[in-house]
């Protein structure tokens, strides 16, 4: 059933795949030759075509990094990580590239709680949560059917069904939280080499501090021109949205 549906989805986008695959191959060749600018161009074209995947963002991030564009690389890694939080290559490269940023911000938040929270959210990708809900529901109902027919082990099958109902509910709750996380762009990466953070969203505002390429900030409020951000150490300020990559 799962395979069948996947096939249908694949068929839906088969035209895009053929178009995309060609560019992917071109980009890979450029990357291998060290023509990172060309690789970036190809990958960006695929994205501009309205398609996306964690692997695509990952490859683009690698190309940006090799082209010494740390800020954009980190931004793309975060996009990839968001789409597939479980991928180890993405995490690994993100860790390495993050070390190259200029800003070192002390984290004042409770890391432990945050880690658990993000750990649960990132255990599966969003699709993973969808499949998890479907499979757990199917199993729950299957166990209930067996429970109704079977004479001998009624209790066992009832509890098995109940557990799967809980898994189903859990998957939906976490899935919606993850969906919220994905659709709401609550984080951002500084893309410009150096940015002044000011205290009010006006041109004449006073500079509070400077941020550098690749630094991750939390978005509090954003419009097309100005974005209010918060650093991990609690500092807040405004900067122009054009300097940011929101995700």
């Amino acid at each position, binding site marked *: 059933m799962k395979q069948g549906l996947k096939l249908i989805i694949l068929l839906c986008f088969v035209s895009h795949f053929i178009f995309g695959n060609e560019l992917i191959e071109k980009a890979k060749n450029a990357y291998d030759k060290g023509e990172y600018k060309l690789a970036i161009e190809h990958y960006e074209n695929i994205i501009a075509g309205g398609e996306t995947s964690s692997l*695509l963002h990952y490859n683009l991030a*690698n190309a940006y*990094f090799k082209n010494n564009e740390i800020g954009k690389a980190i931004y793309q890694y975060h996009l990839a990580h968001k789409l597939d939080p479980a991928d180890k290559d993405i995490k690994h490269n993100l860790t390495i590239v993050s070390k190259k940023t200029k800003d070192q911000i002390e984290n004042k938040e409770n890391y432990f709680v945050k880690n658990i929270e993000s750990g649960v959210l990132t255990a599966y990708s969003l699709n993973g949560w969808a499949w998890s809900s479907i499979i757990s529901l199917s199993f729950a109902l*299957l166990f209930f059917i067996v429970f109704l027919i079977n004479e001998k082990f009624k209790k066992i099958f009832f509890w098995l069904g109940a557990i799967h109902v809980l898994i189903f509910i859990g998957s939906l709750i976490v899935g919606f939280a993850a969906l919220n996380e994905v659709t709401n762009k609550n984080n951002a990466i500084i893309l410009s080499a150096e940015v002044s953070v000011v205290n009010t969203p006006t041109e004449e505002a006073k500079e509070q501090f400077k941020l550098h390429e690749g630094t991750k900030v939390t978005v509090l409020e954003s419009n097309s021109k100005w974005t209010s951000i918060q650093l991990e150490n609690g500092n807040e300020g405004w900067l122009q949205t054009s300097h940011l990559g929101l995700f």
Partner: protein
Amino acid sequence: MMIKKKNISLFLFLSISFFLFSFQSTAQKFTAQTSKNQLAVGELFQISFTLNASGSNFKAPNLNDFDVYSGPNQSTSMQIINGNMSQSISLSYMLSPKKEGKFTIAPASIVVNGNKLESNSIVIEVKGNANQQNAGNRNSGNNQAAGNNSGVSSASSNDDVFIKTIVSKKSCYLGEQVVVNHKIYSKPTLRGFQNYKMPNYTGFWSQNENNKNKQIQLSQENVDGSIYYVADFSTSYLFPQRSGQLSIEPMEVECVVRRKTNRQPQNIFEQFFGGGGYEDAVVKAKSKAMVIDVKALPENNKPADFNGAVGNFSLKAEISKEKVKENESINLKLSITGRGNIKLTDAPKINFPEGFETYDPKISESYSEAGNFSGTKTYDYLLIPRRSGEFTINNLSFSYFDPEKKSYVNVPAPEFKIVVSPDPNGSANGNSVQAYVPKTTIEEKNNDIRYIKTGDLKLEKADQHFFNSWKHYALLALPLLCFTGFIVSKKSHDIRNSDVVAVKQRKAARLAKKQLQKAEVFKNQNNKDAFYQEVSFALNSYISNKLNIPIADLSKDNISLQLMKRNVSDATITKLNATLNDFDIARYAPSAVSNDIHIVYNNTIELIKNIEDETRA
């Protein structure tokens, strides 16, 4: 050669006078004399106080206006002329005026036989500066060329005394050894040196030859037809620390020379022994500054492990053991021997295998300064393998710059193979040092990003998430629909199954069919007995099920009555009764029935079918 100041105290001298001439009270005279009355600042002169008797409690006059170079120096003389013994004691000072002007040296006093005697006072006139007065007119013509690369400079403060600075090279590479030699040339006899000031070798790292305990060697040399005394005063080994024009500042020294005076010998003895006509004079001498052109080391072909060594070196590496157990120590000895700035070089970098505990090396040095600064620097490494296995220490080499060849030289050391066998009582033994293997993870070492993903990148429409989409809900609905279908079908199933009689009636025909199939087998075998038994059982159980009457209660009346109630036609009932009759006869007397079993079989099926049709209608 330094003048030995006779520091025997006056008190001691006077108290050990062993001749008492107390009776000789005639003509006791205490006089002061000076070698010069007119002189320049810095010029040396002698003042002496002479007593022709023995005395005590000598009090020197105030000499604050002068530098005292030596003194009081005492001398005694005794004369016996015609049985008359006379003696004299003389106390002398070597002095040099500090400044210009007219000075009066106050009388000295001494006690002789309880009488205090005073000497005469002396007036000294000081004019001009000794050094300026005599500033050299002999700088030219003194320079000796000592090869292309060397330079000599001399400066004299006096006609007769000058310093030559001899450098081994005027142009050199950064870090290359330059030997600087200072020689003092003097026409008059050199008696000693004082107040010497060695230059600050700014920009150089310098090693001065240890001349504290060394006797300065004097030789004679002919310069422009004059015989000079030459003192090899000092040798320094310089290693330039930066490139560019570095200057060697002048050195200064005050030489004490013995110079002939115009004074006539005081007596025949002075004349005889060559004394009297000479005096000690202090002459200041200063060398000329020199400039050394220091070239930077070439950048191309610079080895990666080059650490600034310039000269000519050799490398020796030794290892104490090649086969050890875990936690057993190994000594690795690296010796760098050669000529050059060896003292400034750092230990070569060694890549010790992982799992080896290493300590900072113990450094021992020995140097010699015979004309060149050379020596041996030894690095003693202590290694403790904490893991068993085979290890190699390679890439061990030492690089230096050879200024003569003008190129870098890399001296490789042999490769060491170390076999570490496991320690049998290793970590279990509490006495052994716990293994410390640095926990560097592979991730930390690998600082490059991983490669891009190849193949299918699983592209999807952006911002279209499967979660919360209609597909997601459709797939969720699917099992729910199945489940609902199951529940519904199960419910109707249960309802129908709840009426046992109805079920039995419904199933009667199906059951009969099954039993007739068995009969058919026997029919085909033409087994009449078995056939009739089966076919009779099938029909009876069908009627029993259909009419809900136990088989035991079946009777023709009973059956007819029940069938009539269910609107079964009389014809069928009559046919059924006939068939049942035939079956009974056949069972008990099979030979009496001549009917073909095929027809019987078909008739039975038709009969059941008829009853089914008519009961349903």
